């Protein structure tokens, strides 16, 4: 065979600039259990000089395009290693082609491959000529793609190309598929990082497969390549990467067999190379890691935000509540060098922090009221208890893993607890609101939609692992290592979870208890005889009587109906073939953790335990990362991995070192949530201004500036209420969370802060509070819409909130009236006093002239005047009580502090004053100002 290597380890196609950092190698390692690819090694993505990994020296077998260049090669290609990936590369198993679930032309391949058996079966299907062993050249997989036979997919390769030769050799060699799957150890991509120093540079990727059996092969022509952002880096079908005009960074992704390897591609921003980010003083580990990335991209970070910007941002992010006017004044005036740090600590200890971040966890775990009906006779109770249970733990700063363990291993009934005892206990926790004291919280598993284990697996992976594995329910995950088998084997952990509705459990004891509960209530338990059963029970519940409750039951893993049918078929077949009958129990014995060990389920009473144990392990690749990334995204508006709930291999972190560091430290700090909040918010990176400079205005994924983001729905509603509230309510906003939108437990949102206040449900719907319905972080929306701005400008909620009875403006109107009344009263009093004084003088003169009648008249008049005077005095007293200092400038300042959390500029002040003074009614003018302020972009955006 000709050893004419046409490829080099690193081949630059156009101008041959040497790039020092391209010697490092991107590696993907494949785990032990089932050949799944584990995390891509991130060392390779760091700066070259520090992290120089040596190239792999075992000499790879040269690639198939060279080996099969000429026909007549007697090498037998391997189905898994060569044939299947070639079909993938050619696009045969694409969605619109033979990967379609309907197939094309009756020929169906597994979508995105990795089901070698069924693909092989499809190719070799009897009665088809797809593979013709007798006459290989007649095989349809050779004649169709070369367009010799009519092929809807058109020409895929030429006759006598290496592709043709390879497939032909495979057919000629018997068209076989080995019994067992080859395990890929790792796929190494060279170069491991692409930095474009000039726009015309190009890189050619090379992919080396290292198999578990020791074989090493160049598989470049068998890989599939794509770019995560082709306006920054374009990649051709054969793996040649070039850049576009746009600066920034992205990844190009290489897929082969089960491996998916992202390779960073960086196109630095133009301008003078930055020696160091001199203006940036960050010294925390977060700051060092973000700065390192900025240097690579030639990004200069924005300035540090000023005090008011920082305060507004950190208050919104930590507590979902705006800072008060006094707080802003104090904070700005303080000269304490530690004031930001101290403020962060103060916020983390406030009731609003606990409420707001409980909402975060309720979103994550999908606390959806509608999913929890039929558990209790107060349909909102489970949602409320779910919320309360998490709230207590957020408030107490319970370690994250411990809190999640309480949810994952949630149980309803204590071991040995009778059904009647359980119902009594539930009635008690409901009556005295003490549910949060229970050790675990079972409602996560009790949602109605959890009808099958697949749904549970999808939800579970999303909530706790930040993974979207649903693709693998039907086909191999296109961007990750998960095959259908991985999905199936993981979902088996959830096969013993059952919800028993209130009508009691399945055991005779439970049933007896249920009957006796109803008997105690004098309720006829037979539904047929008693159509009012539900209503009667609901009434009894309201009266505080012990009523039945639904509960979670963890049983031994059960087969689904289809699986049972399959098993029976198998048994029957075995019986027919008179083989020795094996004793197959219809239970599930094993399940496999994602990318990890297979667990013997028979050893666990609660089959969820091994999953939780795996998640708590310090080397679990998802559990801590998923949370850290989600929390980070709340502070920056974008995750280190984004979308945040998509930690797949092809969607790598924008800063892997940063995510690794934070996750590891989070674990090292025993999953201390407040530590995580402090670590992030105290970093200079978090505290940067949103004002961009010439280098970073297009950066949206490296945290070199704050990116303005729309406030969450709850915060918008609360902030309008806050801006409109009277001074007393305003001051206590952060500490009294009762009835606030940030403390709504489930998805029933018609909650009011006070009896008179507006209910939040409409606003929360319009602004996209999380629906908690589809196992996706996108259930919360931070998009903008027309209906939202219509709401802000003219909804009755807004008009009412601004001016309702206990509002700031209403108080101001009362003051204004009082002020006017005080002036009038004083004037009347003055004139009365005047008149009385004059009369007294007259009286004195009458006294002298002894004019009795006139004297009497006068005394009477004085008496009347005195009476009027007393009434004016009373009016004055009342007015003085309500009176307030309504200095227009101060009012405008207050309005700014309540909404934009900053002082107005001179110009703004003048414009607002003008608006107010144009109005004959001061309060009407101020209403206009407050309306305008809540309608600014600055108000509705966290910046």
């Amino acid at each position, binding site marked *: 065979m000709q050893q004419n290597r046409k490829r080099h380890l690193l081949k630059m196609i156009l101008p041959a600039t040497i790039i020092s950092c391209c010697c490092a190698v991107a590696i993907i390692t494949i785990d032990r259990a089932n050949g799944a690819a584990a995390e891509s090694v991130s060392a390779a993505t760091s700066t070259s000089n520090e992290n120089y990994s040596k190239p792999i020296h075992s000499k790879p077998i040269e690639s198939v395009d060279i080996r099969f260049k000429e026909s007549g090669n007697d090498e037998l290609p391997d189905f898994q290693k060569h044939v299947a990936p070639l079909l993938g590369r050619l*696009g045969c198993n694409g969605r619109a082609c033979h990967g379609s679930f309907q197939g094309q032309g009756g020929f169906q391949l597994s979508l995105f491959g990795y089901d070698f058996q069924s693909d092989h079966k499809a190719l070799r299907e009897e009665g088809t000529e797809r593979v013709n062993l007798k006459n290989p050249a007649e095989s349809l997989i050779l004649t169709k793609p070369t367009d010799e036979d009519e092929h809807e997919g058109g020409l895929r390769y030429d006759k006598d190309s290496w592709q043709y030769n390879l497939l032909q050799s495979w057919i000629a060699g018997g068209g076989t598929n080995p019994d067992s799957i080859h395990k890929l150890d790792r796929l190494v991509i060279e170069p491991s990082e692409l930095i474009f120093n000039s726009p015309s540079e190009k890189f050619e990727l090379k992919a080396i497969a290292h198999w578990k059996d020791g074989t090493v092969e160049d598989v470049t022509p068998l890989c599939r390549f794509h770019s995560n*952002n082709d306006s920054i880096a374009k990649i051709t079908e054969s793996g040649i990467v070039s850049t576009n005009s746009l600066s920034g960074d992205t990844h190009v992704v290489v897929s082969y067999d089960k491996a998916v390897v992202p390779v960073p591609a960086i196109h630095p921003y133009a301008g003078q190379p930055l020696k160091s980010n001199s203006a940036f003083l960050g010294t925390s580990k977060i700051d060092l890691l973000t700065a390192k990335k900025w240097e690579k991209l030639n990004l200069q970070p924005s300035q540090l935000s000023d005090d008011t910007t920082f305060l507004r941002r950190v208050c919104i992010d930590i507590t979902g509540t705006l800072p008060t006017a006094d707080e802003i004044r104090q904070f700005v005036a303080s000269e304490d060098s530690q004031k930001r740090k101290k403020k962060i600590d103060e916020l983390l200890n406030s009731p609003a922090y606990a409420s707001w971040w409980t909402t975060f966890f309720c979103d994550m775990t999908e606390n959806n009221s509608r999913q929890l009906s039929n558990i209790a006779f107060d349909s909102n109770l489970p949602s409320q208890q779910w919320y309360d249970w998490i709230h207590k733990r957020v408030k107490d700063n319970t370690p994250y893993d411990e809190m999640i363990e309480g949810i994952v291993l949630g149980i309803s009934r204590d071991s040995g607890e009778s059904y009647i005892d359980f119902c009594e206990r539930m009635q008690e926790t409901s009556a005295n609101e003490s549910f949060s004291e229970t050790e675990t919280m079972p409602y996560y598993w009790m949602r109605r939609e959890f009808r099958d284990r697949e749904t549970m697996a999808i939800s579970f992976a999303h909530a706790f692992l930040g993974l979207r594995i649903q693709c693998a329910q039907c086909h191999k995950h296109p961007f990750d290592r998960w095959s259908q088998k991985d999905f199936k084997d993981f979902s088996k952990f959830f096969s013993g979870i059952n919800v028993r509705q209130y009508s009691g459990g399945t055991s005779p004891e439970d049933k007896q208890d249920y009957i006796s509960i109803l008997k105690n209530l004098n309720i006829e338990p037979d539904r047929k005889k008693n*159509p009012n059963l539900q209503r009667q029970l609901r009434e009894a519940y309201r009266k505080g009587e012990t009523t039945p409750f639904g509960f979670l039951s963890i049983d031994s893993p059960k087969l689904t109906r289809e699986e049972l049918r399959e098993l029976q078929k198998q048994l029957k077949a075995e019986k027919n073939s008179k083989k020795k009958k094996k004793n197959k129990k219809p239970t599930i014995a094993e399940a496999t953790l994602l990318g990890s060990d297979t667990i013997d389920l028979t050893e666990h009473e609660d089959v969820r335990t091994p999953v939780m144990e795996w998640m708590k392990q310090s080397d679990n690749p998802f559990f801590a990362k998923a949370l850290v990334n989600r929390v980070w995204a709340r502070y920056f508006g974008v995750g280190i991995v984004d979308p945040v709930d998509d930690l797949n291999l092809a969607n790598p972190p924008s800063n892997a070192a940063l995510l690794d560091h934070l996750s590891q430290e989070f674990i090292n700090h025993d999953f201390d949530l407040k530590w995580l909040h402090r670590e992030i918010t105290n970093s200079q990176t978090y505290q940067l201004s949103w*004002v961009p400079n010439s280098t970073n205005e297009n950066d949206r994924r490296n945290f070199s500036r704050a990116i303005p983001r729309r406030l969450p729905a709850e915060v918008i509603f609360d902030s309008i209420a806050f801006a409109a509230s009277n001074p007393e309510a305003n001051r206590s906003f952060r500490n009294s969370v009762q009835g606030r939108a940030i403390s709504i437990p489930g998805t029933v949102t018609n909650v009011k802060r006070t009896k008179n206040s507006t209910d939040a449900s409409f606003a929360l719907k319009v602004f996209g509070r999380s629906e908690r319905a589809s196992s996706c972080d*996108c259930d919360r929306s931070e998009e*903008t819409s027309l*209906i939202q*701005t*219509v709401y802000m400008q003219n909804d009755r909620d807004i008009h009412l909130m601004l001016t309702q009875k206990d509002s700031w403006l209403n108080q101001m109107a009362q003051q204004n009236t009082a002020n006017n009344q005080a002036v009038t009263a004083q004037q009347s009093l003055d004139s009365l006093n005047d008149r009385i004084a004059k009369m007294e003088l007259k009286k004195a003169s009458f006294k002298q002239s002894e004019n009795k009648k006139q004297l009497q008249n006068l005394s009477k008049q004085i008496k009347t005047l005195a009476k009027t005077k007393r009434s004016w005095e009373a009016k004055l007293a009342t007015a003085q009580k309500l009176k307030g200092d309504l200095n227009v400038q101060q009012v405008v300042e207050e309005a700014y502090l309540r909404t934009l959390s900053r002082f107005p500029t001179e110009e703004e002040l003048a414009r607002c004053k003008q608006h107010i003074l144009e109005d004959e009614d001061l309060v009407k003018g101020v209403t206009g100002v407050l309306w*305008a302020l809540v309608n600014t972009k600055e108000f509705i955006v966290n910046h």
Partner: protein
Amino acid sequence: MGFHRQCDGVTRRDAIKVGVLGSTTGLTMSNFLKMADAGQVNSKATSKAAIFIELPGGPSHMDTFDLKPNAPSEFRGKFNPIKTNAPGVEICEHLPKLAKCADKFAVLRGVSHSLGAHPLGQQFVFTGNRPNPSLDYPGYGSVVAKEMQSDDDLPAYVAIPKAKQGPGHLGVKYASLQTNATPRFGSPFSVRGITLGNGVTMDEMQRRSSLLKDLDRTFDTIKDRDDLLSGLDKFSQKAFSMITSNRARDAFNLSKEAPNYAKLFGEDDFSQSCMLASRLVESGVKFVTVSLGGWDTHSDNFSKLQNNLLPKLDAGLSGLFNGLAAKGLLDSTTVFVSGEFGRTPKINSRSADGGRDHYPRCMFMLMGGGPVNGGQVIGESDATAAGPKHEGINPEDAAATFFRTLGINHRKEYDTSIGRPISIVRDGNVIPGLIG
């Protein structure tokens, strides 16, 4: 975000480049042309707007548009069929006004599915997609709002008073403007967000707006390069013009209708809502949902229908068809009427008057206007209306047909936020003979 891969690893941009070969857009140009040849696409006769009348609760098909006078008494029901102005089409005697305009709509019988709970049935029939726990499908109006542009000072999609299905995975941007109330005969109608109230006058609104313009300057330096900020600005202007323009307010002002026109409708809320729907469409709104509930007649089925529901439906719907025709809008407006399921053919005896329970296996729908061929019955149920006689019409087919009347290709795919390509209607085919 903003950049998403599809589940099969193809980006949108790629999909365009891929073209015919391996196209991921579902309906390729060549397919489209083939369909066009087969008469499945008629680009001329498409509607410019649509009205969806949802009848949540599930109206009894056997007592409305699919009567079985010869069925045994435990099925048949109390009502008799009457002839309509469309030859061969018979409907319930308590729908006399609709009988006089049956040429304007087609009756779909033997529509069939399997979801017998209200929310699931509604999710299915009001979106055209079988519910899926990990995906929330958009209601018809949200799809139309996305596909069809509306003018600046009008909402694209209005729901009277609200719609059962939200925008689903399309996001809040395509949610309806809910009126939250139904218009009442003879009294002014106020629409949340549109009607000025609470002491705010037009002058005051103008003054405030000019103040807002002067104060809202903080992000001037970056707003043009930021989608969120420029979007907020754009919507702010649109909202203002909607609130202050006469057009939007007039569109909701029923007192501006001529008395002769108003006479076509009844005085109840549903009729008034239908009149409002016609007025909104005339003004340029693209999609209106009108909701009429109360059809869940487990008990007292016949008296509820006869005394309340059917007279309302009859007056409102006939008013709508005749009104649209009178305004010359019927040819360009599709009207689609459906509940989430039918009701059990066998009458239950829970109440003296008899009731019927949930029954998704057999139901009716109505479709009219635009390119729909009215005056006919499509599909057929068996002798006791217990199921389709032949192959049933499924909700997907009805949805596909409905979208087709608007020139919307129901196989068009959207990428959900997880990058999964989802077609507007997953499994539907245009119902033969209904349009064209």
